[in-house]
Every structure is written in structure tokens, then in C-alpha cells.
């Protein structure tokens, strides 16, 4: 009970900042629109590639863009902790008898919430642009779930890196280094049968691809429960592992003081 309460307090802190800063709010809400429209325009021709059978371009791209945006948003989660470290807030939190896991879990829950909001926006916008959600409401919920799970994993990773590196520059470096390769080594923007074999092989181990496959299958295609179940399972394991890593990073940070 107490760990949950404490985590919720940390989540509330994030939500307050979100609601009180109009610029931040506006950016969070317009980002999905820009991504969908830009990527949509850029990749419109993807359906004309011989061998492509993903349906309309918007059906194909929507899950990919949702997952990309989830990873990108989650990556910056650790910034808040770096602010806390430099501002003195972190030391105050760490001398309190608060569960270290709550400091991570609360932040991660906030990041996941933001991703859910952005995902819902993209889903609705894509619908307006003519997307056809074959999987129905259930399928869309699975898509939102995988985006949130993947986001939670990356938010934890970001928090862990932040606590270990403590430098904005290091976190920016890590996010930029990871984001694009993970996106391009997946089927987010290109159909699996059309990417080179070595990418297909690497994509099997890429969490971004797990989320794309599960989300696309559930929301846009005839749902493949075996595929969705296994990918969701993998994402759950990844999220827990990253959460453990981040919680340990708090202890590691304290040991270095």
C-alpha cells in the first residue's frame, strides 16, 4: 500500500508540472499530430513499393509512429531526475524513508500516462485521416498497451542512465544514439518482407519491433493472438527488468555520494 501511495505522489508531481506549463502541454499534444502528418506525407508512397501488402499507408504507419513516439517521449524521462539532482530535491528525497522503487515507478507511471494520451491522439487523428482499425476497440487497446509498456521500459532505462550519468548531455547522447537505430531496425516504417535480411534478424531482438508487431497485428490486421501474447509477454519482462535496473541505479547514485 505504502509503495503505491508513494509512487502515486511522485506521479502527481509530474502531472502538476504538465498541467501548469501551457507550453509543455501544447508541445506534448501537438507532437503526435506533427509526427503523423510528416511521416504520413513522407512515406505515402510506401504502398506503391512492389510486394507491399499492408493496406493503406495510414493503416500501416499509424502503429509504427505510435511506437516511435512512445520511445522518444519515454527517453527524456530521466531529465526530471537530473533536474532534481542538481536542484537538491534528490538528496532531500533520499534522506526520507521513501521506497527507492517509488521514485522510479512514479516517474515511469507518469511517462506511461503521457504516452497513452499521445497515443490516443494519434489513434483519433489517424481515424479522421481514414485509418481502418480492423481489430476494433480491443485491438486499439492492445496497441495503447504495448506503446505504454515499451514506453515504461524506456522511461526506466532513461531514469537509470540519468541516475548513473547525472549529466543532461549524457542522457541526450544516449537517447539520440538509441532512438533512430532502434526505429530503423524494426518494421515501424517498412514492411518486414521488404527490409534486408540482416535487419529482419536484428529486429527479432528489438523491443521496438515487438511493440510494432503486436500493436499492428492487434489494431490493424486480423489479430494473431500467439504473436501479440508473446510480444506483450516479452515487453512485460523487459519493463520489469528495466524497472529493477533503475531502482538499483538510485542505490548506486547514493553510494557515489
Amino acid at each position, binding site marked *: 500500500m*505504502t509503495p503505491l*501511495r*508513494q509512487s502515486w*505522489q511522485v506521479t502527481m*508531481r509530474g502531472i*502538476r*508540472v504538465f498541467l*501548469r*506549463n501551457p507550453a509543455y502541454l501544447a508541445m506534448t499534444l501537438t507532437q503526435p499530430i506533427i509526427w503523423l502528418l510528416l511521416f504520413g506525407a513522407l512515406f505515402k508512397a510506401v504502398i506503391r513499393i512492389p510486394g507491399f501488402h499492408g493496406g493503406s499507408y495510414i493503416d500501416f504507419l499509424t502503429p509504427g509512429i505510435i511506437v516511435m513516439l512512445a520511445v522518444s517521449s519515454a527517453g527524456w524521462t530521466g531529465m526530471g531526475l537530473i533536474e532534481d539532482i542538481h*536542484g*537538491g*530535491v534528490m*538528496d*532531500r*528525497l*533520499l*534522506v*526520507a*524513508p*521513501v521506497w527507492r522503487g517509488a521514485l522510479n515507478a512514479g516517474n515511469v507511471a507518469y511517462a506511461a500516462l503521457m504516452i497513452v494520451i499521445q497515443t490516443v491522439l494519434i489513434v483519433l487523428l489517424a481515424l479522421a485521416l481514414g485509418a481502418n482499425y480492423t481489430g476494433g476497440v480491443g485491438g486499439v487497446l492492445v496497441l495503447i498497451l504495448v506503446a505504454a509498456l515499451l514506453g515504461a521500459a524506456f522511461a526506466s532505462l532513461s531514469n537509470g542512465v540519468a541516475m548513473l550519468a547525472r549529466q543532461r548531455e549524457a542522457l541526450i547522447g544516449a537517447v539520440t544514439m538509441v532512438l533512430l537505430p532502434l526505429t530503423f531496425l524494426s518494421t515501424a516504417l517498412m514492411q518486414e518482407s521488404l527490409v534486408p535480411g540482416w535487419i529482419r534478424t536484428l529486429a527479432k531482438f528489438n523491443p521496438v519491433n515487438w511493440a510494432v508487431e503486436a500493436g499492428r497485428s492487434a489494431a490493424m490486421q486480423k489479430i494473431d493472438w500467439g504473436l501479440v501474447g508473446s510480444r506483450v509477454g516479452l515487453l512485460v519482462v523487459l519493463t520489469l527488468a528495466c524497472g529493477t535496473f533503475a531502482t538499483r541505479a538510485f542505490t548506486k547514485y*547514493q*553510494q557515489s*555520494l
Partner: protein
Amino acid sequence: MELAIEARDLRKTYPPDVTALDGLSLSVAAGTIFGLLGPNGAGKSTTVRVLSTLSRPDSGSARVAGIDVLAAPVRVRHAIGVVGQKHGSDPEATGRENLVLQGEFYGITGRELKQRVAASLERFGLADAADRRVKTYSGGMQRRLDIAMGLLHRPRVLFLDEPTTGLDPEARVSMWREIERLAGEELMTILLTTHHLEEADKLASQLAIIDRGRVVVEGTPERLKNDLKGDAIQIELADRQGAVARVALERVTEIGEIKLEGRTLRARAQDGGAAIPAVLAALDAHGVRAASVTLARPSLDDVYLRYAGRAFQQAQTEPEEVAA
């Protein structure tokens, strides 16, 4: 005597080779204000970090409120309040929200929390600003909020790490009043670190002067000053003739403990007024010109000079140690 804080032979080194604590030992009686005095980098903040369970020493042991900080850090955290050097409050949240979050982390909830937060805002003069974001607070208000947060769970031991650093003189004086009131009204032990000699002299009933990670002397401010016996004479030389001047003064029987720093000579005398003519005569005889001579009752600065072997101001500006 019940001890609220007991530290034995604490050692801590930061990589690559900065020795922050070098065998520091302390005993603080329950219910007192204890001043930890020293220049930046002397090890004050590291001491607070170790005693408040934020960091672990490489060796040594410590008990706070009777609890071993290494064996039972979580129990220690419940018993202590910490007001750090930096502001610990969240600038994006209001004063009230900061206090509520703090209370939740200490397991205070519901109506009890609400009442304590309201009383605390009232007490620290923040009731009107309670629902404003902390980033709009003045430095003095932020500091009061920091202290309110450190006290919300009614700790038995309160650590105040340089509580008046960065405050303007007016806010500093009102903070002093607040700290005195705390010690008077609540039966709390306060460990106060400061590099303001005046602050330590005014607030602390017991003092430890630390330098380079160890306690160099300990006692009441009065006792430390009395131990010096006599007045401090400070001579500013007109030219760089320190060595000659020193030789000259060593022959003057009225004074002792001559210390030279650049162009400044310091000495102690049982009766400073009577010693000055002899001092001036001796300097004159060696052809040394004095720019000025000052006479002062012993201050903590003199105590510091005597035990740490260097003047406080000088130690303050030495860049050899990190101010971590």
C-alpha cells in the same frame, strides 16, 4: 548525558584522492545546538551526508538518535530531519504541495497530514503564499519552507547544513531567530554546519571546529575563546618584511604565538594594550614599518587560527579541496 549523535573515526575518500573525512569523531548531547564550523571543503557537508544516511563512510561508525546509521538507515531516516545546503523543495509545486509530498514520504496521511501542513505554513509565515509555486518565493521564504519540510515529521535530530548561505543579512537574522526558537520550544537536537564564525558563536552551545576532515578542537564557544587567554594583536606590514618582523617580535616577551601570513602578523598578549609599545619599538629597531596595528578580544577566528594553524579566510579560499 544522553547522546543524540555519536560519530567514531569516520573516514571517507572520494575518487581519485580527495580525503573528505579523515578520522572525524563527534559527540552531540541530546537537546543542544551543536555547531560544526569550518571553511568550505573542510568536511562539514560530508559529515552531514554520512550522519543523515545519504552516503556511507569508508570506515568508522555513527549512531544518530541511538540508531546505527550503517545498520539501520531506514530507522534513522524516520528519526531525523535534514535541511540541505541547496533548496530541497520542488520549484514547480506550491509550498503546500511540497509539504504534503514530504509528509506522505514519512508516512503521515489524511487529516493528520492536512492539519500539520496548515500549522506548519502558519508557523513559518508561509500561509499567504501556501498555494503559490515555490519558484515565485524569495530566498528567505524558500529557506523557511525547507525548514518547515525538515520539521514536518517532528524529527528528534535536525541537520541544518549551512542554513543561511545565500540569504541576505535581514533574512539571515530572522533565520537565526527561528533556529533559536526551534531549540527552545522543541526538545530537539540540532546539528548546524556553518562557515560563518558569527553564526556558530551566536547559535551553538557546543562547537567543533573541523579542518581537512577532522575535528581540531571542541568545546563551548566561550571556553574556546577563553582558552586563548588574552588579546589578539594583528599587524599589517607596510613592506614584505615578514621574516624580519617575525624575528623582531620573537624577542618581545609580552607577546606569544606569533603567526605570519603574507604581510599579516598575528600574536597573542595577556594585556594587548601594554604590549603594543613594545611591539612597535621592536619593529622599529629592526627597520620594519607597520602599516597598521589592531587589537581585538579573541574571536572564533582566532580560535580557528590557533587550532587549524591558518586563518579562516585563507582556508576558505584555498582551492585544494572540493566543496562537495
